[in-house]
């Protein structure tokens, strides 16, 4: 098909390149990022940059107020995301991102509190905090970048490492059963659970918008390729071939039971929105049960 340009003007190249020398480029999403922090430290082919871009796109499309959106992150590769965003962001200690976010939300309920952290941080060191925040239904959004190992420290096996996959600490293949994060979040009581891969950028963006606007504990899992640690040891190829395997193996489903959505080393990946229910949040229940009864007039004792 032949398509030609007809008198259409592109923005002049000089305007694009004059800002590059200052270290803050002319990319339209750069206004949500801190000046001078890009390029980031993530490896070539890492999916964390795609997740960060999806979050920034969600802020742009969902019209989130930058003064009322707070990002909390834990330790790990994706923990650097808090440093790149030009918002009120907090980089907390290992595993304690969710307690920090719970405190922020209870102190100022008007804030949109988003936790962006990794699978090792949220489910190994901070596993207790995740299940109890989901049980209480605290009104926060948790976005988990799942790359199946501890990428920053050199590729050790973690709670989501699939069976028989090789890591630094499991050189003959992992012998432990991994967590199924979707099933764990549903069983703990999350009101919104979705899983996407790094290839599903538009769906990931829309899920983030929906979960920030939805009251209650929302969980979005993003499966990201880690070509340096996980892909190299398991012979999954570089980032591009990992993304191609996501394209070929991901199955979009909304009716599958979360119990059957476990991910193996190779094989199908069930993606979609698995849980979307309404439940009173922690602050609603606390106001209703504790504060109202404490303020109620006491019954006088009849003598």
């Amino acid at each position, binding site marked *: 098909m032949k398509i030609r340009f007809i008198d*259409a003007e592109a923005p002049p190249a000089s305007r694009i390149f004059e800002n590059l020398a200052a270290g803050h480029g002319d990319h339209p999403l750069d206004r949500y990022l801190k000046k001078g922090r*890009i*390029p980031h430290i993530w490896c070539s*082919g890492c999916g964390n940059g*795609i997740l960060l871009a*999806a979050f920034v796109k969600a802020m742009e499309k969902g019209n989130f107020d930058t003064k009322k959106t707070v990002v909390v992150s834990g330790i790990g590769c994706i923990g650097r995301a808090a440093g790149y965003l030009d918002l009120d962001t907090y980089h907390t200690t290992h595993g304690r991102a969710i307690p920090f976010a719970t405190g922020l939300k209870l102190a100022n309920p008007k804030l949109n509190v988003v936790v962006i952290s990794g699978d090792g941080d949220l489910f190994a060191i901070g596993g207790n905090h995740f299940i109890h925040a989901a049980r209480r239904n605290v009104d926060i959004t948790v976005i988990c970048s799942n790359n199946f190992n501890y990428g920053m420290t050199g590729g050790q096996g973690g709670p989501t490492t699939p069976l028989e996959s090789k890591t630094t600490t499991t050189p003959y293949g992992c012998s432990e059963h991994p967590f199924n994060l979707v099933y764990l979040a549903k069983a703990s009581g999350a009101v919104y659970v979705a899983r996407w891969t790094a290839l599903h950028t*538009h769906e990931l963006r829309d899920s983030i918008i929906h979960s920030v606007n939805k009251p209650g504990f929302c969980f979005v899992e993003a499966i990201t390729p880690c070509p340096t640690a996980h892909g190299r040891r398991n012979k999954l190829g570089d980032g591009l071939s990992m993304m191609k395997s996501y394209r070929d193996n991901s199955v979009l489903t909304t009716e599958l039971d979360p119990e059957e959505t476990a991910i193996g080393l190779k094989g199908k990946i069930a993606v979609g929105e698995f849980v979307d229910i309404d439940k009173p949040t922690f602050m609603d229940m606390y106001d209703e049960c504790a504060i109202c009864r404490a303020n109620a007039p006491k019954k006088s004792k009849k003598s």
Partner: protein
Amino acid sequence: MSYWRMPLDAVRREIVLGKVNIISHRCKGCRYCIEFCPSNTLAESEDFNEKGYHPPYVKSDAKCVNCNYCETICPEFAIFVTELEPRNLLPEDVVKTQSRSRRRTRRE
């Protein structure tokens, strides 16, 4: 998309056009934008950028339809698309050759 004759509502329809802008010094050469572009607009260049990667270049600018997928898939914030003014369908866009399934008749 190609048409074998002029569509009847061609006057009311518009073709969306976009222009791909590449900030080549940010590129880390993951090739996601080249591989997953739906209209096959980009290709890997043979030049190096200052990090030593091969950044993409726009192979055929006229193919871009402003779907913004390269902008969302790029992990490095190194590529973005600006929308140009849409244009109407022209008689040159219509492909004269018939597709293979139409050429075959039942008698063959």
